[in-house]
């Protein structure tokens, strides 16, 4: 059965605004919350650190997002991806503690990569029980999600640098609250 152009457009919009964007908002909130909990946020400040951190964030965000949109969104997949993400976050936390918050370029690259692991289970969670799109659309969704996460983290960084670096909890809280409202909206929408 062929689908109409209208239906295809609707699918794309639903895929992007019903899954990729809310997943990236939520993932950003979780990544920043974890960075806040393990003091990574406080450690960042030397602009040279961005050179290592950003590629790590971008590579990790894209890789985990692609995994989330390529694999099947099943209960087992959700459980496994959550466990993997948790283990990787624990690994990032361990690196922070083991290095006494002193991270060289390689450490920052690895930590940046590990910290984006929540995009994997979150992407799957947003897809779970929803329409299963074709692979090309899913890959596009993954790339949009991955890039959006890095953009949101950058927006947060610029904001807190420009506002005197106080009340750092407000950034992760904003993204988590936004995700809650977004998810509620998605659930209430017809």
């Amino acid at each position, binding site marked *: 059965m062929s689908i109409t152009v209208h239906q295809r457009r609707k699918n794309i919009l639903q895929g992007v605004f019903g899954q990729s964007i809310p997943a990236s908002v939520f993932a950003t909130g979780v990544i920043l*919350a974890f960075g*806040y909990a393990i*003091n990574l946020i*406080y450690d960042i400040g030397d602009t040279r650190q961005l050179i290592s951190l950003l590629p790590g964030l971008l590579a990790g965000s894209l890789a985990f997002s692609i995994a989330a949109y390529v694999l099947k969104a099943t209960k087992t997949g959700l459980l496994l991806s959550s466990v993997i993400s948790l283990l990787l976050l624990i690994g990032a936390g361990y690196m922070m503690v083991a290095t006494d*918050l002193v991270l060289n370029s390689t450490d920052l690259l690895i930590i940046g990569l590990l910290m984006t692991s929540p995009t994997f289970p979150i992407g799957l969670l947003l897809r779970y*029980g929803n329409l299963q799109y074709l692979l090309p659309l899913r890959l596009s969704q993954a790339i949009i999600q991955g890039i959006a996460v890095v953009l949101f983290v950058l927006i947060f960084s610029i904001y807190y640098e420009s506002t005197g*670096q106080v009340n750092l*909890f407000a950034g*992760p*809280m904003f993204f988590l609250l936004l995700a809650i409202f977004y998810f509620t909206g998605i659930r209430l929408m017809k």
Partner: protein
Amino acid sequence: MIRMNKYLIMVAILISVLIILPTISGSISARGEKTPIKHLINIYFENHTFDNFFGTYPGPLSSTGNSTLADIARPINLWNDPSILSSMNPVKTGIFNTPDPIEGYSAYHTDWNHGAMNNFVNGSGPYSMTYFTQSQVGPLWGLAEEYSMADMYFSSTISESAPNTMYYLAGYNPLINDYGPPPSIPFSQTIMGELSAFNISWGAYIANPSDAPHFSEWAQISGMNEHLGNVHSWDTLVSQIQSGTLPSVSWVYSQEGNGTDQGPPSSILKGELWLFYLINTIEESPIWNSTAIMITWDDCGGYYDQVAPPVVDGVQLGFRVPFIVVSPFAKENYVSNTVLSHSSIIAFIDYNWNIPALNSFVSRVNVPIDMFDFNFTREKMSFDFGSSFPIPGSPIFSVPANATSPNLTATFPLSPQYNFSSLPYAKQGSTSFNLSSAGGGVFVSSDVTLMPFYASPYILLVLTIVAVLILTIVPRRRE
């Protein structure tokens, strides 16, 4: 008989009131000073290490034929190791600033390199390997020569201003770097809180008191805004000094003073002029005979220093910063080798005003008592370096156009107030005296970090769970 009983009852009531009153008001009577010092004035600058300012003090090792120079006590500095000196760059004469070395927890730890002190270029960058010379800091060298300086005074932690200022004001630090608040610490656990509890007067002085509610140096002290009555302008400081009404303990902040704090990339010249204006004002005042001025810098600012900071009572100290004591009781031409840090100033306050150590850490740091000789009082000195270093007539001033690129080499050495060879003490020394050895207990038994629940990671965890629950439990509306 009845009348006598009435008198006795009235006397008993009066005595009871006198005993109870301080308790009701929440204060405890001060117990008087242990030394002749009745006024301590703490002056706080930004971001220079010991080697950055005193690396080549008092001059070349080879004799210049100047007998005063040859007699000046030599601290641990860059002359120790010619290979280090040759790898560094002096700031050119006529220049009073450098570009800002890279600052921050990570950069400073990279510099430190687990105590090897050999990774500054990779940490704070190439500008870390610069140092000022007599042509810029001659007046500061003169101050150190005429009074006491310490060459083992360390900033309190390998990080930026805020964590070090916590140790300066509270002997405790919950921060990693300048980010925040939160977290913060309660006012009651600071030295200002302890002084308030013991009814000892104190004041903080900043350029513009209207900045006080948001002043960076106490941004992480919760409750400070309820004590802004103790915060005054530099002009008020001067009038209180001149009228003899200065509180017992004062903190004078050069920060946010339009270029007085010496932090790179600002010029250090304005801060030097400001400092000498204050010192001259104090020396010419009625309080000089009972005053000590303690001058220090908050953190390394990314500049090189050669001495690996020690661990004191489990706390890894930061890099060395200059520390100078100016007082009629300060030893002339004396270099203290005592291991000191910002909390040593708190320990001195607790010791001098005979009150408990602020907390356990303060009780274990050394007190800079060897920098004084209380059997020996000195006449005032009014510093006058001539037109190349025109000391201003007010704490708020502009650097004169003809003094923007002077050569201050001629400002040092100064003529000694007393002949160095006749001084009744050694040129260098140290002490391990601390308040725990003196007894007296601690004021704060357990330091608290204030992290409100709304700002804690736990609330973020709760929000994360809520978001997941919405997606997994709330049913989707079907068309």
